[in-house]
């Protein structure tokens, strides 16, 4: 019972928040010095983060492990503080001013969830391709074919615009056609198919296939976070006036 009270007190404490944020900062700063000089990080985005981190030596990843652990503490701390804040102060007059920081916290938790989901299941594959190239998508019977590559080059040789027509098929039957343009990827069953790089002469592309399970939660979290912070700023300005 005493232990539960102490745990409760620990997670309700602003001191815990500040110490956790401070430690996360230290972890990130350590990573900022470790990461640039280490070639192990080149493979970081080709597999889920948690899978990658388990394969690397600890002297390279200790700061990431530290960050994950401390962010778990931050997440629980955020949840505890937000719930307590809403429950204890629910009868105050300025209820919207009370709740807007908690909306910010909810957005933050969604973003943490997004990163956690991505750390579990995000991956990236790249493949060089030309018109007519066919490739089987990992983990499925779907075949992706490059039907057409169209690159427009200006007078000075700079690429002005491009589009790549692709086709998805299964068992020889076309199931979907799509066009990839700059900032307009093809989304197929949760897979983001985009062009990382291209060459005009001869026409060749570097196709990139990404799976990001956390993407939707990151967007939701971002929107909720912004609603909270904008509301807070407006209310604070009104209060000052």
């Amino acid at each position, binding site marked *: 019972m005493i232990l539960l009270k102490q745990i409760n007190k620990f997670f309700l404490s602003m001191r815990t928040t500040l110490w956790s944020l401070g430690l996360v900062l230290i972890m990130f700063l350590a990573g900022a010095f470790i990461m640039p000089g280490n070639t192990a990080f080149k493979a970081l985005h080709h597999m889920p983060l948690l899978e990658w981190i388990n394969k690397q030596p600890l002297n390279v990843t200790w700061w990431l492990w530290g960050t994950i652990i401390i962010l778990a503490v931050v997440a629980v701390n955020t949840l505890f503080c937000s719930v307590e804040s809403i429950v204890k102060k629910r009868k105050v007059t300025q209820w919207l001013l009370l709740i807007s920081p908690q909306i910010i916290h909810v957005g933050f938790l969604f973003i943490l969830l997004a990163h956690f989901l991505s750390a579990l299941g995000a991956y990236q594959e790249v493949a060089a391709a030309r018109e007519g190239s066919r490739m089987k998508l990992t983990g499925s019977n779907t075949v992706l074919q490059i039907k057409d590559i169209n690159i427009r080059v200006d007078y000075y040789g700079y690429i002005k615009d491009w589009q790549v027509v692709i086709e998805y098929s299964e068992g020889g039957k076309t199931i979907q056609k799509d066009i990839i343009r*700059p900032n307009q990827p093809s989304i197929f069953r949760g897979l983001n198919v985009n062009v990382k790089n291209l060459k005009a002469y001869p026409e060749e592309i570097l196709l990139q296939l990404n799976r990001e399970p956390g993407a939707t939660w990151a967007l939701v979290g971002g929107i909720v976070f912004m609603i909270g912070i904008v509301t807070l700023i407006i209310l604070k300005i009104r209060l000052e006036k």
Partner: protein
Amino acid sequence: MTILALSFASYLFALWKRPFLYLGLVLQIGYIVSRGVELGRLPLVGPHDTITFLAASIAAFAIPFGFTLKEERDRFFSLISASVAIFTVFALTSKQINSPLPPILKTFWFECHVVLAFMSYALFGVAAALGYFSIKNRDPVLDALQYRAVLIGYCLFTLSMIFGGIWAYLAWGTYWVWTPKELWTSISWTFYSFYLHARLRQWWMGRPMAYLGIIGFVIVLFTYLGVSLLMKSSHSF
């Protein structure tokens, strides 16, 4: 470049007479607009254009904050003028990038991401300036103004990160990439999250917050310039 050089001169004269600060800002905005017209796009690529935009943003945001001050007003505007003049010199000596934008950068998301980022940097810079005066004179008005600058800057910075994430997902299939730029962005964001929470504790009120505001801007400057110049990432100059 002549207009930019004139704006630099104006900022220097502003150390003597404040209306030159407003003139310098008008000239600098005029230069940015003329660059935009010349290039046919927002001039926000490379060190020359981005430092110019940052300098103009600092001057623009500093003006309303400065007018709220009473005793420190003149010295605040002098510090801002000197700072903006220094940034403008860096812009004058930096290479212009006049090549057309690659297709991947021709998007609303890129423009919003960059504009919001630099507006937030500017607000953090104003907060640092207010922090400097707060250290010298214990004035609750300075503390409150610094907090306001940081809060609005934090809001814009977060929005910039969100737009950047959306753009990265559309361009490269992932909303987050672990490169030096993103890591230092996380450091900046976490630092200001720390700042906003620390001021809820009595121990941190006053001078500690003022120092945090200054340290934060140093981190932001490294995130912007240091990473882009010294490290390899998608944000390299």
